[in-house]
């Protein structure tokens, strides 16, 4: 999608942001979010995700560029008139109000009558399965319950856009997974456009329609989760998303969409060139651990293979995880499924490993 897309519900158009007038925290951000889409901003801490969200919510002003909501520029609309629901990382439930009062707050300030209010509150609480907790104070709720209430509060006034800034960051793994599922389901059921911020790549992959990977104030890649995982566009994305093996080398030759890379120890491997374009260039080759093959039958007959020495074999139940030494890299991981015919490798064993060229991507060094 390009900026200024007529269909875009939310659009960032060449947005820049600087807090101190010296460094840009957000550099030339172009992003269009479709109506009803669940978009996740993923990136390491400090990469500018929250800043983007805050500009959208109206708590920070863009230094340059324009943000539009449903076609209208919102740079000059104060936050309380934007009608955007928001869920904060620390929940930000008002501690001096009960759950019901917290939920009533957005309705009261909109002048909604009492009976309407009660009905909406009840519906919102039921939606997050917290119907019995209306009279409690936030401090009497667990983290997960508080997060549910925060979600209900952000949705109770029926906004079309909801922003969530690392809402599950403070919860334990299991709860996080349950809530991930619930949030996604709610968002889709209600047809709300959601902008979700996280630094957890699993969360991003499992929940989103599309993921925008942030680094250093720039969107490194914006794609659906599967494409992001399988076709990372640069070495940052490749390493940030999922587990990844990397090998350093130099481009030997490029033939259209295939390239041969000479690794630093002299061996050659087949890759597809992603962002390398001429021989002699330094490159970082990326292969997912589950795409590495040591069974010759599964490889193309003319495929380049490379010697590997098994350093460690780890039994993990559903998979085997083998650490091998390849071309000077001692941390090269091979993942194999625990199938009946699968062979358990032994420490010290010498193998020939290889992969399909399309699984091995030559990226920028």
């Amino acid at each position, binding site marked *: 999608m390009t900026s200024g897309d007529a269909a875009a519900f939310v659009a960032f158009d060449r947005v820049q942001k600087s807090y101190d007038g010296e460094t840009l925290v957000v550099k030339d951000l172009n992003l269009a979010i479709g109506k009803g889409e669940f978009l996740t901003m993923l990136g390491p801490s400090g990469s500018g995700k929250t800043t983007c969200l805050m500009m959208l*919510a109206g*708590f920070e002003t863009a230094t340059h560029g324009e943000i539009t909501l449903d076609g209208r520029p919102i740079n000059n609309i104060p936050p309380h008139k934007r009608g955007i629901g928001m869920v*904060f990382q620390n929940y930000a439930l*008002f501690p001096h109000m009960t759950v019901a009062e917290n939920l009533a707050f957005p309705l009261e*300030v909109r002048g909604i009558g009492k009976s309407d209010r009660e009905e909406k509150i009840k519906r919102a609480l039921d939606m997050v399965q917290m119907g019995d907790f209306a009279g409690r104070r936030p401090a009497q709720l667990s983290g997960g319950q508080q997060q549910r209430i925060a979600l209900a509060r952000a949705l109770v006034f029926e906004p079309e856009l909801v922003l969530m800034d690392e809402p599950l960051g403070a919860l334990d793994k299991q709860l996080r997974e349950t809530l991930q599922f619930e949030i996604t389901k709610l968002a889709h059921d209600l047809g709300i456009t959601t902008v979700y911020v996280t630094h957890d790549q699993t969360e991003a992959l499992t929940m989103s329609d599309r993921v925008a990977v942030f680094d250093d104030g720039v969107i490194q890649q914006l794609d659906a989760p599967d494409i992001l995982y399988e076709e990372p566009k640069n070495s940052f994305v490749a390493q940030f998303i999922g587990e990844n093996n990397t090998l350093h080398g130099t481009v030997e030759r490029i033939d259209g969409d295939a390239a041969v890379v000479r690794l630093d120890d002299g061996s050659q491997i087949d890759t597809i060139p992603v962002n390398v374009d001429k021989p002699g260039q330094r490159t970082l080759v990326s292969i997912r651990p589950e795409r590495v093959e040591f069974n010759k039958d599964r490889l193309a007959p003319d495929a380049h293979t490379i010697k590997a020495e098994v350093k460690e074999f780890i039994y993990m139940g559903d998979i085997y995880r083998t650490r091998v030494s390849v071309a000077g890299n001692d941390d090269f991981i091979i993942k194999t499924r625990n199938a009946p015919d699968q062979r358990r490798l032994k420490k010290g064993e010498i193998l020939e490993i290889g992969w399909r060229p399309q699984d091995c991507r030559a990226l920028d060094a």
Partner: protein
Amino acid sequence: MTDATAEPTHRPSPREQKEMAEQDGPMLAADGTPLKRSLNRALRAQKLRALMLIAPLLIFILVTFVAPIADMLFRSVENQIVSETVPRTIVALDETWSDHDAVPGEAVFAAMAYDLKEAAERREHTRLGSRLNYETTGISSLFRRSGRGVDDVGEIYADQFIELDEAWEEPATWTALMADPEWIADAEGTEDEDIPRFRLADGIADILPETASAYAGFARVIIDQDGDNPLEEEPWNTIYLALYRDLSAGADVSAYDGPQARRLSAAAEAVPGFESEPVSVMFEDIDEDWLDPQVWGTIDAFSSRYTAGYYLAAIDMQLTPEGIEPQPEEQRIYLLLFKRTLFMSGVIMGMCVLLGYPVAFLLANLPLRTSNLLMILVLLPFWTSLLVRTSAWKVLLQQEGVINDTLVWIGLVADNDRLQLINNQLGTIIAMTHILLPFMILPLYSVMQTIPPSYVRAAKSLGANDWTAFWRVYFPQSVPGIGAGCILVFILSIGYYITPELVGGRTGTFISNRIAFHISESLNWGLAAALGAILLGAVLILYWAYDRIVGIDNVKLG
């Protein structure tokens, strides 16, 4: 060391077993002792160590805080001076004085003569006079005058006894009559400093009760006060009065078989022929006020060892012989002062909230560098002397001061109609608000700092405008800071002293200025203590009320 179970040899004692049985099966540790006991034992060492760590502070506080307060509370009810200085008079008043509108009888005057003579010798009569003067004005000078005049009370009898038998003038005659022979043996020939405690002869107190009492008092004063030997001192005139009263009351001198038996019975025979004069007349000669029943009423009313008199005085009441009554209109000041102190402290507290809240808000929400600068400005007053600051207010606020000059120059006030900004309540309120402002700002600031900005953001994202977000979300969370600041400012200002003294004039002073006056000028420490105790009580009541209404755990000082 918290492992209490590592003591396998311990058997539950019978008492422990009984307790266990009573508690219907409490939780047991591995060795069978109740878990609570094991835990307590394990924690005891820790507690002891903690106690030792705070011991220096604890002792310091006990000595410098708890003890003075206890002493103050005690002083506010203490009244032993009356019963200690004129003990015989109090007993006599109690036993013989029934019609409080009339002058008491001879026995009371005689008792007063013995007491007053002793007190005058000990130079304690003026202290008693000042004490009673708090209750009835004029008593102080009455006692001062009478201290000298009481020397002559009884002189008429001394002359007649000596005329009868010159031996009555001899100290030895008296000691032989009154003192325990063993004491005489001990006292004879000893250095004046080493004279043993005076002891009365056996049975003499039964035969000559007043004389024995008066002489014993005389001997004690001679020994303790003057460091002289009663064997060598001529008795006071009051003792002759006592002897006359005993003998004329028909003392059973035949029961006396001591060395002075003959001389005593001769005196007893001669006494009916003595020229006599009522003791009350002798006192009238000293000062006519002794015939005023009110003087005696006051002594009687304050005869008990403890008194509510100071407290009554502190609330503009008085204890009169007729009971508790309000002070005369023109002498009522304390209730007014209490009310004024509370009212002005309340105003100062309110001003501090109004002025301090925005500053604290800025402090908590500005970027760090700016807020640090602002913080320095807030703390600056702390680093300058209180006196300097107060004096600076004098310079600013006086009629020829900076503010009035400026207003006149602008033309807002006429030159001959300058504003009275100081030496009144306004001056006190302005200066004290300034001085106490940091005590409001700091707790407010520390509470506001802990309010995450995300609350207000959340409120705005939910549709609240700036004011609603502040009023409904931010403000309620800052209330604990307001509470803490208010308590601090109010309590500090209620007991403030220097500033009202300097800028308060007559209408802007606090109750503490009055307390200071009684402590350092009028020396009425009892009243000062009572006023202080009432102030303390008022603060505690307010604190309690605050706890009931707002909840003290809602107060955050940091």
